[in-house]
């Protein structure tokens, strides 16, 4: 396992990039800590696959360097980087049995047969395919093949890093739970450095110790799931993490008070934002419906089983609130209130740190 360092890394697909827009990946300096599990999360076209391809060696960056444990690998091929990769669609040798498929990377490295056997059995159990290991891969369903690809990616324990590119896309929801748990368990046991690319927030948040959120070729925040949820550094993170995403209100922020429409909200902390446009962000989980607060009208209620999403119109601003499974929802007119500690302040889309410094994480949740 290795620490992976990105030094002044940037990439443009153009020969002579002139402006920041010419870069698919904006300049990035980052250490991927040895043994941590990271997720690279962002919408299509945000640059996450470009970044993964640079780390894996499929793409040579136009600017900067990639180091594995301090050694420059920028120009090394994928094969020479000693990494394992799992892709979105299964890569399986159809003429081999599943056992042979799983054993392939180990045989290539000349491991003893008994060792190979033990590991293949173990991985076979992990992906729940022990009873079919001696069948040929041809004719299997796509998700069975993908499980073999995943298993093959994890069968070696001497790799520098394990890279996953949307590996669960073709897997059924129920099996996703199973495989994700297994991946996590494996990570606990072996402490591989793992980088997992996905556009699915649930996958990213549940898999990773740290999530790297990308937007428009830039890394906008690197944080624990907790940090991304409670303190989105950019309004994009607020929108992209959470379902539905964070609500945003245009607001005049002065000290401890935010003016929204005609209403005044106590922010609980003092803020001194710069001269840019200010907004406040409140997650649907931190919006309460009640008798007082900002007037709003219920426009739609979505029952998603374990809770309800209430869509509201508050003076022209669309707002989403989450209420409990059995909670009553007012018909038509109501008011919205923000849970204390559940409010973030933004200036020009970037989060403003309160004057008194950060409160401990989870203050909003406790209050809610």
């Amino acid at each position: 396992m290795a620490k992976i360092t990105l030094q002044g890394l940037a990439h443009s697909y153009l020969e002579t990039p002139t402006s920041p827009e010419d870069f698919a990946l904006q300049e990035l300096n980052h250490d991927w800590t040895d043994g941590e599990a990271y997720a690279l999360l962002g919408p299509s076209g945000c640059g996450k696959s470009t970044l993964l391809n640079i780390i894996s060696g499929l793409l040579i960056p136009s600017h900067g360097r990639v180091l594995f444990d301090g050694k420059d690998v920028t120009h090394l091929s994928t094969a020479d980087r000693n990494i394992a990769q799992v892709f979105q669609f299964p890569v399986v040798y159809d003429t081999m049995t599943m056992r042979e498929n799983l054993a392939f990377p180990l045989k290539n490295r000349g491991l003893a047969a008994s060792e190979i056997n033990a590991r293949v059995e173990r991985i076979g159990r992990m992906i729940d395919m022990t009873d079919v290991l001696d069948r040929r891969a041809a004719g299997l369903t796509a998700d069975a093949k993908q499980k073999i690809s995943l298993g093959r990616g994890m069968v070696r324990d001497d790799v520098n890093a394990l890279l996953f590119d949307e590996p669960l896309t073709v897997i059924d929801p129920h099996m996703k739970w199973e495989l994700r748990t297994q991946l996590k368990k494996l990570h606990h046991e072996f402490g591989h450095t793992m980088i997992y690319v996905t556009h699915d927030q649930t996958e990213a948040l549940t898999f990773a110790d740290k999530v790297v959120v990308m937007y428009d070729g830039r890394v906008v925040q690197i944080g624990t799931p907790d940090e991304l949820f409670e303190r989105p550094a950019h309004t994009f993170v607020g929108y992209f993490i959470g379902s539905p995403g964070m609500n945003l209100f245009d607001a005049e922020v002065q000290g401890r008070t935010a003016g929204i429409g005609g209403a005044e909200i106590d922010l609980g902390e003092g803020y001194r934002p710069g001269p840019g446009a200010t907004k406040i962000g409140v997650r649907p989980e931190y919006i309460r419906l009640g008798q007082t607060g900002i007037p709003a009208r219920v426009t739609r209620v979505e029952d998603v089983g374990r809770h309800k999403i209430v869509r509201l119109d508050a003076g022209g601003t669309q707002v989403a609130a989450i209420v409990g499974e059995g909670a009553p929802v007012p018909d038509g007119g109501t008011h919205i209130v923000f849970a204390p500690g559940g409010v973030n302040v933004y200036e020009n889309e970037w989060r403003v740190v309160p004057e008194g410094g950060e409160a401990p994480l989870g203050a909003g949740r406790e209050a809610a």
Partner: protein
Amino acid sequence: MSLTLENVSKVVGGATHIHKTDLTLNPGTMNVLLGPTSSGKTSLMRLMAGLDQPTTGRILWKDEDVTGQRVQDRKVAMVYQQFINYPSMSVYDNIASPLRLLKLDKSEIDRRVREAAELMQLTPQIDRKPLELSGGQQQRCALARALVKNAGLVLLDEPLANLDYKLREELRAEIPKIFERSGSIFVYATTEPEEALLLGGHCATLWEGRVTQFGPTPSVYRRPVDATTARVFSDPPMNFVDVEKRGAMLRFGKGAEVPAAALGGDLADGTYKVGFRPNHLSLEGGEDTLTFDTTLIVTEITGSETFVHLDHEGQRWVGLVHGVRHLEPDQPLRVHLHPRHVYLFGESGRLVQPAPYAEAA
């Protein structure tokens, strides 16, 4: 104009793809087919569309037998998981293509194309080629083409599966609004319970080629007729534990004994299966809660909630609890469940007693 499947089945080379099915879909309704991969969703849609012939049974379109009618002769539109657009045509021409096949006059085509484009929020992109669009816009273009025909039956086969999570969220909210206006029968296949709930309408759950239940979506979710339906309609999966009732006592698995009165009703002595949803499991006990000793396998934190993966006497459970819990794996963990969230299934899997909370909802 309703669509009725009467005793319809499909057998291919000795393998039953669809077991005998009776189903009536009403005009102006959203009908979700919910089930895992290979459960028969696409097979059923192909039968509805007339792309495949049923082995037994009949398909009626507003009481007229259309079994065996060519799909081209029926008012059917289908959208697949892989967006299919003509790459060399503009968005406008893509949407117009089915109308041109119908040889409608030019002004009528123009009106309907612009209306569909507006509905799909594609007006600003109307002169672009599909490859110049984002994935979401490409799929909206395919959806617009399906809608423009005013087909009485619109079949959507996992249409959002290849899109970004956030785009899916947006289109999911749009699709019910579109169908509300159109009056067509919509059939929408998905593997995701949450998507089914968000789409609302009616839901047919599928398992191994069988429709296990059909009814209003929230009521199928809250009142599954059997353990299979409950399993299909739960993500994360529903948790199960065997119970044995003897006289006044209930024994859960190998462990806890509680008075049978805790689950209410008057059950006959015998073996049952208790099912409950992950979000109803709690780390805090309360009055009257059932208690289980489990081993924590792993936790997953989503930022606002925590998934706990548990081992209960060799059986896998998942719990979804509020807040962020940093818990050490491979440790014993005591969890709690309120009896009002318990479904009781018989040995055959049939629902014996619905969860009291669902009755109240």
